């Protein structure tokens, strides 16, 4: 099976299935022994306020470009075999999946490092914005802790 950049980097409204993405990344090599996954989900509490709903917006083309750069840099710098990055946009409820990063390699150490670096880099460089809905209204989140 092919693993194209298109399928490994996605910004989409619909939910994703972690098992499906893990099975997809396994196809990259029979030598994969460790797969580290980071999944970000919608929390109910943010700075002491109760969140009822989240909304994500992105800058099309630039956001995809940044995710593709993160994937390539992770593969090159951490020596992993493959990485998948998916970020959802639109309305997201509490407990729902927001972002998924899957890093696969022969051994585990580099997959942890690559995965942790990739989510930090995504937050730092990728033009995606979050709007939180609370009982007092809607706010765009300005700082990322």
């Amino acid at each position: 099976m092919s693993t194209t950049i298109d399928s490994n980097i996605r910004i989409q409204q619909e939910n994703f299935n972690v098992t499906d993405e893990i099975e997809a990344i396994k196809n990259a090599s029979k030598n994969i022994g460790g797969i580290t996954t980071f999944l970000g989900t919608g929390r109910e509490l943010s700075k002491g306020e109760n969140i009822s709903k989240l909304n994500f917006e992105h800058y099309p083309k630039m956001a995809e470009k940044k995710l593709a750069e993160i994937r390539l840099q992770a593969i090159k710098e951490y020596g992993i075999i493959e990485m998948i990055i998916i970020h959802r946009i639109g309305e997201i409820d509490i407990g729902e999946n927001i972002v998924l990063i899957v890093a696969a390699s022969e051994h585990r150490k580099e997959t942890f490092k690559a995965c942790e670096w990739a989510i930090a880099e995504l937050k730092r460089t990728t033009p995606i914005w979050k709007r939180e809905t609370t009982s007092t209204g809607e706010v765009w989140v300005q700082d990322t802790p």
Partner: protein
Amino acid sequence: MITVKYFATLRSLAGKDEDQFSMGSETTLVNLSHEISKTIPKIGEMILGKKVMVSVNLNVISLDAIIKDGDEIAILPPFSGGI
């Protein structure tokens, strides 16, 4: 024409998704910021005060960057993707 896109909180501030500016064949981000300030002073201030990032054709640029006719500029408030 130069296209300027506003995202997230800046779109609320601008009251629109994007603007068009006629600035000749070449200008700088500083000049464009002054032009934006004529209608939305706060956004011009944020660019000049480096409170927001600016991209030209999907690449982040600095204040002294040259902008050409036909470029797509985006004013990018601090990112909050991920979780």
